[in-house]
């Protein structure tokens, strides 16, 4: 079924979060105000990206990174038009122009750069095409999305949206099962991470770190979006508002009451 919508209502960061957590394979196609972007993923990891008229080819990426000059770029485009990026990469490595590491690092930098540009898009239509892979012959990378998501979350500054995402600072945080490795966090973010524990409310974490409500929400939002933490009720806190859920106090009678309700609903 459809995975489509408008960026005004569902941001790039949220889309990357969904693709990351669901380990999706396919291509996200975004129609922005003046350009179209194609971002491909394999099992939830960034594989390829291109934006607008830029073809995202290896020759173009290496030229932009000053790894090959304009004459070399033109020569490649003229003479190696039918060559795949993989073949071209091998040729350039064998000729001593670049190393394999150069190629991978530059492609990774280019693809993440495309995604970074998308963080500025607030208008546009998106759709995710399952199983649609990058064009044949292009070199794919395999980049974890967590760091990109956290970076994108830093762009979110609007208090109103953050309050929607995290309505109450009286909730606590706990780590999810996703490992907290190879994640680039700022000092402020680490200071929050240090106190992630179901015993600590976000309000307490903010107070300890002398962070404003806005700042702690922004940091927690990034961690939530990257799937590193989740919100939980603080451990050991008894809710103030639990008046008379049941008209009877005896546990067995309460169970009987619920079973009666189940029986009645089944007959509807």
């Amino acid at each position, binding site marked *: 079924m459809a995975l489509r919508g408008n960026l005004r209502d569902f941001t790039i960061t949220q889309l990357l979060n969904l693709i990351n957590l669901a380990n999706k394979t396919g291509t996200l196609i975004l129609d922005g105000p003046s350009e179209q972007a194609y971002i491909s993923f394999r099992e939830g990891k960034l594989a390829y990206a291109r934006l607008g008229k830029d073809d995202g080819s290896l020759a173009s990426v290496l030229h932009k990174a000053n790894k090959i000059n304009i004459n070399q770029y033109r020569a490649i485009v003229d003479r190696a038009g039918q060559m795949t990026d993989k073949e071209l990469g091998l040729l350039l490595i064998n000729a001593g122009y670049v190393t394999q590491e150069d190629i991978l690092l530059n492609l990774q930098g280019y693809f993440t750069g495309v995604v970074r540009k998308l963080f500025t898009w607030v208008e546009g239509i998106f759709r995710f095409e399952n199983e649609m892979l990058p064009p044949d012959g292009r070199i794919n990378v395999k980049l974890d999305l967590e760091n990109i998501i956290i970076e994108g979350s830093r762009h979110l500054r609007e208090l109103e949206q953050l309050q929607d995402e995290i309505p109450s600072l009286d909730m606590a945080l706990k780590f999810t099962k996703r490992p907290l490795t190879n994640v680039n966090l700022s000092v402020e973010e680490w200071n929050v991470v240090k106190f992630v524990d179901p015993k600590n409310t976000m309000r307490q974490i903010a107070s300890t770190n002398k962070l404003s409500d806005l700042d702690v929400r922004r940091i927690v939002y990034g961690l939530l979006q990257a799937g590193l933490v989740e919100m939980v009720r603080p451990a050991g806190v008894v809710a103030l508002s639990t008046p008379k*859920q049941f008209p009877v106090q005896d546990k067995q009678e309460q169970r009987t009451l619920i*079973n009666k309700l189940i029986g009645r609903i089944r007959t509807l």
Partner: protein
Amino acid sequence: MQTVKMVVTGPFSAGKTQFIQSVSEIDVVATERKISTDEERSVKSVTTVAMDFGRITVDEDLVLYLFGTPGQKRFDFMWEILSEGMLGFIVMVDSTRPETFREARSILETFRAYAPTPFVVAANKQDMEDAWDLEDVRHALRLDGNTKLLPCVATDRKTVKDVLLELLYSILKDMESGK
């Protein structure tokens, strides 16, 4: 006469009133008003401003009340009042309107903060072609694997019953585990 209540909540136009209507033995006592903004009017013409109220009589001694919350945020002062004493709550989300998922998350977190009662999430309009897959909705709402996310069509009594039953099973399970 003993009474218990459940709350049906969710964003504007998620299908809460219809959900209650599908199983209530009385016509839903709705407190609806004409929509005041153009954007909202394009989705539906009237909305709940205080609450919806449905009833299911179990026997002569026991009645279940279903309360539907107003979906628009400007009426959120009603939410805490309605949540007092609830057995559990259902968060409804329109699977075809991803623009409401953020609000659904916010409502879910708000209700979780009110009371530690069990809840389930009902993904409404799963019969529509442009509905998001359940698993995509799960990730978009940041639901963990233990949270029940159920397909639902608010006009279809069977799926509404299934949602209510799953919430009751969760309540029973919580009681048995001593929560």
